[in-house]
């Protein structure tokens, strides 16, 4: 049983499929996420593949603060993902709400509604920071 668990953790660390959701960002962080998937940064060398459907995804990449409009959709997408699943907040707005904090239509950062495993600050977070954050998240899973 021990060995099986080890193999499973190894597989999970080596093959995270990500889903990208913009819950109200200004699009800068989204561009940086897509940038880190391009040949220049090549996330596939860590086994990270961008998937279009929540059913295939292991990691949900959230950008931007949660707005009243997107809250319901974000929760629905999170519920559609099969266990085990992780959420990464990318950019200052997703981490804390950022400059949008206190706005009447803003619910706050991603962690006000979802359990966030990793925070990657930056406005926008650079591809290098995103890769570093995701690799650190994967490293923490091994424990």
């Amino acid at each position, binding site marked *: 049983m021990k060995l099986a668990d080890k*193999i*499973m953790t*190894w*597989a*999970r660390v*080596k*093959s995270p499929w990500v889903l990208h959701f913009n819950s109200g960002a200004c699009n800068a962080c989204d561009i940086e996420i897509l940038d880190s998937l391009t*040949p220049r940064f*090549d996330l*596939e*060398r860590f*086994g990270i593949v961008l*998937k*279009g*459907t929540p*059913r*295939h995804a*292991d990691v949900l990449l959230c950008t931007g603060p949660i707005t009243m409009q997107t809250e319901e959709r974000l929760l629905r997408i999170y519920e*559609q993902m*099969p*266990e*085990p699943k992780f959420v990464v907040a990318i950019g200052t707005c997703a981490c804390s709400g950022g400059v949008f904090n206190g706005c009447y239509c803003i619910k706050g950062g991603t962690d006000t509604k979802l359990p966030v495993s990793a925070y990657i600050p930056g406005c926008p977070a650079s591809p290098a920071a995103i890769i570093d954050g995701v690799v650190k998240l994967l490293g923490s899973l091994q424990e």
Partner: protein
Amino acid sequence: MAVLYILIFPGFLFLAFYGTVVEFVDRKIYARLQNRKGPPWFQPVADFIKLLGKETIVPTDANATLFKALPIITVAAVTTAFLSVPVWGTQAVMPFKGDMIVVLVLLLLLPLSFFAAGWNASSMYSTIGAQRVLTQLFAYEVPLLMALIGPAILCGSWSLSDIAAFYAAKPLFALLNLPGLVIWLLAAQGKLERVPFDTPEAETEIVAGAFTEYNGRHLAFFRLAVDMELVVLPAICGAVFIPLFSANPFIGFVLFLLKTLVLLFLLTVLKAAMARLRVEQMMRFSWMVLLPLALVHLFINLIAKGLLL
């Protein structure tokens, strides 16, 4: 002995292992052609194990039995088809008269199950993906069979093993089959739903096509079936169109690996070099270019049979 053949070599276990190797080679070459580093060698295995350990969700609107049975049906169909394909020599493990047609029918089960999977999953994206799977099926399936009929007629047998043995004895006749090789490769690319014929799972349009609602181990087995198909189609192509065989089983097996990897390389270069065609462009290409070419190929082979044999 038959059980060993079916379960271990060259049946399920070998095919699954070689399928993961082939998927890695495909992804690595694709990455290198895009000037990327590419995934590590264990990537397909890690993906498979991870998917086995995920929660499986069955949509409430779907028929649960069908939803769970389809991935197993596809894996079983490809494994069965592979038993009649020559691996280490000109003779397959279980050759019989007319096995060429049986192999193609078994491989036809794949797109049909993809269609059923997409339709059953009741998501809008998967329904569109399922329709596209069927639409594309009508485009590539005819050239796929027509490309094999030429060699079959020249040799006078409908068995893949007999065809391989015929061309092993008379390798020069294989030159007549060069158009067939091109047609087969292009049609196989359509059957494998890879770029430029990947409209059924166009992730930029319809997320993941027919597999949109699939997850966990069901998705793992669907991916395994596709990987196995990526072995079986080049293997058939290598057996029929490339007359490189050896009486020694070991050298024959190495030749088999070489042939499948070279053909896979061609398929991957095609995938990296092209953009996606629309469904109707794919239909037009198949019916207006591939099918006439296949008919010309058949005609040449008929004349050659009359004159040279």
